[in-house]
């Protein structure tokens, strides 16, 4: 009886994990329930949100690109299936490796890290015309000095 139950549940689990194994799709942010995995702030500014889809299809949500980078720093990339950040212009999800980044201490983001993402370098440059900043390549984000942590 118990064994049977076990088998049933295990089968169920396998079915669930087997479904949609390859596609790491981002999900919608729910500003009422989602909180940043790193800094615990609720993700109410959904246009700055970021997320990681793990290889087991779990989704980890962040309120700011800086928190996502902190997550990658802490946990490494081997578990991560894909990571997404919002495009500043269209609010679509961009794969963090395809996005272009702009930094300025004057840009506001939820954690005030001041890095914004754009779909193309073209759009990023367009934005910088009105709001001066500097282009930051993705490779530099991991070593980037996030925020104004004065006492660190």
């Amino acid at each position, binding site marked *: 009886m118990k064994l049977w139950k076990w088998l049933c549940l295990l089968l169920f689990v396998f079915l669930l994990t087997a479904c949609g194994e390859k596609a790491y799709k981002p999900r919608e942010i729910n*500003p*009422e*329930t989602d*909180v940043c995995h790193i*800094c*615990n*702030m*609720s993700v*109410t500014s959904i246009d700055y949100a970021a997320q990681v889809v793990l290889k087991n299809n779990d989704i980890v949500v962040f309120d700011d690109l800086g928190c996502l980078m902190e997550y990658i720093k802490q946990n490494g990339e081997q578990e991560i299936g894909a990571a997404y950040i919002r495009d500043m212009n269209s609010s679509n999800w961009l794969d963090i490796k395809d996005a272009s980044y702009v930094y300025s201490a004057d840009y506001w983001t939820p*954690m*005030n890290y001041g890095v914004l993402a754009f779909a193309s370098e073209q759009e990023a440059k367009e934005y910088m015309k009105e709001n001066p900043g500097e282009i930051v390549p993705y490779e530099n984000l991991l070593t980037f000095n996030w*925020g*104004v*942590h*004065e*006492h660190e």
Partner: protein
Amino acid sequence: MIKIIRIALISMCCALLMMPFQVFAHTHHQESPIPKAKPNVQTGEKNTLQKLIDATEPGGTLLLEGRTYRGTVIISKPITIKGSKDTKIASLDSAITISNTNNVVIEDLMIQAENIAIIGEKVDSLQLKNIQVEQRKAGIQLTNSSGITLKNVDITGEEGHFSTKGHAIAIYKSKGVQAADCDIWRVMDGFYLEQVDNITLKTNSIKEGRYAVHLMYSDNVEVTTNKLESNMTGLMIMVANNVSIYENQITKNNTLNSLGVYLYDDEDVDFHENLLSENTVAMSIENTQKMEVSNNEFSTNGTAIQAKKSETLQLVDNQFFGNILTMRTDQKGVQLHHNFYDDYAGKDYDGDGIGDTKYIATNSFGQWMVRKPVYQYFIETPSVVILNLMDTEVTDGDTAIQIDESPIVMKKNTSRDISINVWQLGCSLVVLIAILFARRKLR
């Protein structure tokens, strides 16, 4: 002759009244989502506020009548504006914009603005006293200012989920903020302070918002005797230095993801004599150094303390009772010393007031909850209660557990009256006799 003078006076007044129409054309704030085409409806209503302000000499005092002024005003010189009973400013956009000036005092006003009620930029010495705001988009928003005093500023938001609202009082890149006796209700963040130095928040009351007090990148902070109730999170202090929090009441912050107090990446924190009660998690500390938590009362919370990367956190002389879980931490743990725990099972045979055996504050179920939040579903299920009973028997030797070597055994005085409730006694006796009678009948 007198008649002629009277006519001349009246016509002059009329001319004056016509003038302000020109003034408001350009006062819309840049971020305004309110359609700019909306005209200031002036159905015969006099609108002389901007005119009155313009007419007041710098440093002078403007006394307002007890009526409603409509429209938006700009203040760019030192001035004291004083309302009287029922003075109200109503605006379809922002109500008051103060910029590039100093020594501005605004008192005794009601403000109702569709956009932000008061905007301030580069103001040196700003005092807002006895002001009531009916918040639509946001309450008060100040940037690059200094010497800000808020006294008895009451802000009320509309109904709805906090994620759709704005902050009540938001201050950016400023120096010196004193806020006292402010009543804030139904907003996103009660106080949102970003990059502000020298903050004192005293005897404010903030209810039903997202975060009652939300400080980021702010140093030299004092938070005292505030009441923070039924918010998502009471105190949220991130990346701050030299913070002192005492004698606050942080209660009923128990919605989804709720925390009573949350400290993230802070240094030099003194947290004493606060009451934390009926919160989902009373206190969550992350990546915080040089923090002492002493003489607080943690009662009937879901989890009392949750700590990550804060191995120097000192918990001394606190009282814990009625909490489902006293503590959960990561491997680094915290320092527990000389606290009272109501679920401490040890005895004090030598009578020194300190328990003879150590108190184990963590259990493995709590640690699971940190790893996978879904486990929260099982909180205090019969199975988990039994698991915890077995747990405390076998955790010796585990390095991750948290131990207080010197728990206090003195019980806090709970003054319960031992009186007879006659009404209840009578009723229960009657029912009992009826039951026994029925039982005899049914034999």
